[in-house]
């Protein structure tokens, strides 16, 4: 049962990276879109792409937390005690991002829009970096077991954390660019298709380069996970790399049809590979998943909740996506009578 719960945790985490990650990446493109005039069109595509699903995407992270603290409380305590700083920064980034995003749309004046926009965009970089650094700290065995605090600095400022943090930013940026190509195609804006295609190519190449760097760093700094990636998790890692290569090829050829799917497959495969590489540890190499788990009653509850979530949430989520993608969720919903006709 422990294994099942750990798998669920990994899958939810993957969902967060795939769905929520693209939102963060979109914020990064928003940041680099240039001044109000030049950036208006890319920003319009970004906002269109994030769309009504933003709120829902966000809840995946909460599920990650809830499963972690309920099913693996002791490991959770170790992680939050040790990685206090990056987690706090990520939380603050989420506040800034959410508030900036929520308010920017409502504020008409460009001056204020710019402030809120800046908050939204800057924190879109901060959050994936910090969460990547947290993952790096855990993967490289810098979080001790037993609900104890590890080193408050080295646990997140270390080679693995830095490289995984940067990789995290690059990966979500790439995923978002790939996704935005598709959005731009959907709204029929050929110029923006090319705009984001170029960005997808550049960021994709950057991801490829960072994967090489990460492999080198991990081979000396996070040996357990590196060994896992080259054995247990090798098939997944290969899928990830092939997906990236395939997507880059299609982007180069301007054959944009399957790119979005390949993007999702790549990112999901890489996250899953990281998780599988850690197996059977939750905190390599001090705490095994089985030793970390909560009593059976709790694990059963988590699984029941997960099953209920599949039954209730997944259809709702699909409905939301379908409605959104068929453009059935129009603009702000309805025009106001106060609007000029």
């Amino acid at each position, binding site marked *: 049962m422990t294994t099942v719960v750990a798998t669920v945790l990994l899958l939810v985490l993957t969902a967060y990276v795939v769905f929520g990650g693209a939102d963060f990446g979109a914020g990064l493109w928003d940041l680099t879109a240039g001044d109000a005039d030049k950036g*208006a*069109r890319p920003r319009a595509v970004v*906002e*269109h792409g*994030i*769309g*009504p*699903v933003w709120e*829902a995407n*966000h*809840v995946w*992270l*909460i599920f990650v937390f*809830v499963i972690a*603290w*309920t099913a693996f*409380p002791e490991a959770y305590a*170790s992680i*939050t*005690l040790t990685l*206090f700083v990056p*987690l*706090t920064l*990520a*939380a*603050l980034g*989420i*506040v800034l991002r*959410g508030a900036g995003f*929520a308010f920017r*749309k*409502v504020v*008409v*004046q460009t001056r204020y*829009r710019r402030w809120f926009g800046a908050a939204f965009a800057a924190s879109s970089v901060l959050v994936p970096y910090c969460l990547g650094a947290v993952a790096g700290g855990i993967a490289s065995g810098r979080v001790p077991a037993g*609900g104890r605090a590890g080193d408050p600095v*080295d646990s997140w400022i270390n080679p693995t954390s830095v490289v995984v943090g940067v990789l995290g930013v690059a990966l979500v940026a790439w995923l978002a660019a790939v996704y935005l190509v598709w959005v731009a195609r959907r709204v*029929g*804006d050929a110029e*923006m298709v090319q705009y984001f295609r170029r960005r997808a190519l550049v960021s994709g190449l950057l991801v490829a380069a960072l994967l090489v760097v990460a492999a080198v760093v991990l081979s000396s700094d996070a040996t357990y996970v590196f060994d896992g990636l080259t054995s247990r998790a090798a098939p997944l890692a290969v899928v990830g790399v092939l997906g990236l290569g395939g997507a880059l090829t299609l982007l180069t050829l301007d054959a944009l049809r399957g790119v979005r799917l390949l993007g999702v497959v790549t990112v999901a495969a890489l996250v899953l590979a990281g998780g599988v590489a850690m197996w059977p540890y939750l905190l390599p190499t001090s705490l095994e998943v089985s030793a970390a788990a*909560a009593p059976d*009653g709790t694990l059963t*509850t988590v699984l029941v909740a997960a099953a209920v*979530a599949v039954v209730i*949430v997944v259809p*709702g*989520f699909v*409905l*939301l996506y379908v*409605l*959104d993608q068929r453009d*059935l*969720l*129009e*603009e*702000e*919903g*309805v025009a106001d009578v*106060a609007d*000029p006709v």
Partner: protein
Amino acid sequence: MEVPTLVALAVDPVPWARAQMAFTLACHIILVPLGVSWTFLTLVANYRALRHDDPDALLLAQRWSKYMAVTFAVGAVTGTVLSFEFGLLWPRFMGRWGEAFGVPFAFEGIFFFTEAIFIAIYIFGWRRLRPWTHFWTGVPIVLAGLLGSVSVVAANAWMNAPSGFTLDAQGNVVEVDPVQVIFNDAMPLQAAHMVVAAYVVGGFLIASVYATGMLRGRRDRYHRLGFTIAFTVAAVMTPVQMGVGDALARWVYDEQPTKFAAIELVPKTSSAVPETLLGHLDSDGQVQGGLPIPGLASWLSDPSTGRSTVVQGLDAVPADTRPTTSQVNTVHLAWDVMVGLGTALFLLALWYAAGWAFRRRMPQGRTFLALAAAAGPLAVVTLEAGWIVTEVGRQPWIVYQRMRVEDAATTNSGVVITFIVVCLLYLLGAVALVLVLRAMSRRFRRGGGFTDDDAPYGPSAPAEQREEASVP
């Protein structure tokens, strides 16, 4: 490796962790009633619009859904901060009790997910979905809001009445009974009290906006309707809330006698205990000042034995297992505020009911409208006071009689900094939220300039059109 800056800040993290938790929760809880009850009010207006073909009601429903989008997004963000904080501020609490305390949150997550999905569909579906279909997409939001807040409060109630787990010799949780955890003794009444509070606060808060508008001379049907829908719901819920609160107080009398002693300001176990209005304990633990109503506290605690009901005093337990004198004073004051304002709100609701009963319309006078305009913020104060009674009254326990607060807190002294940063951020956020909501309402009123999409999520306008819109 030790960090110089952290050494320089070698302060006790516990008070800061508490302060930060209390501050962020106190902010979040203001948005909660809107999340829980506003959708219901919107659906009432929506229903009226569809049933009676009422354009004013339709306009209300549509505008409310746009405001809701903003407050819900802010509620989600402040809520996410809370979930970070459980780990960041109380890691030892989560490490030790997470397997039990975490259980209700597993379900809460589902409800919030449902809520987030349907709120997006409802807000964005106005034009394209068929009217009744669209109405029905609002119903899951109401249910999910209700059940979501029940789940969160179940977790808080578990801290008041921990149950549903087995400990081994070292005190580690070895078995968990999830049903017992969720449906702990404190849960039914506490959850009911919170849900009703959400309707009371949400109703009064929204009504107060329209009352203000009417005071400023905007007495058209649109404003009257907005006021009536919101105020009626709040007015109906207020007496219910007093009933549930009364039952809850008796539960506290039975199960948390120390908290009850703090509430009623009872230093020594005795019978014929007076209900002391205001007043405080001095440094010797004696009651000073205030207006004692003889025997009332005893009588209320158990009417069947009347004034001879014995109320356990603070002195019944050792000093280190009960709230300090200043905490007792906080609890007592908060209690007076909650019950006092709750009673005042009830009287206002009676006035309103009398208006309908005798004149077939709501009271129109300026005094009534001024009081109604004040009722929203006062209801928020009532809600906050209630939580202070619950939380501070439980001190020094985080898990009642199982774990003390200082054993639960983080050991990171950096909390001082995060506390300050969080306060500043929230302050900015609050200012921004108020300005944004006001700007929206001005624009609705001015009847122009509402060219841009107002909800916080994506627009679906073609890029060219949006470009013009965003470059004024």
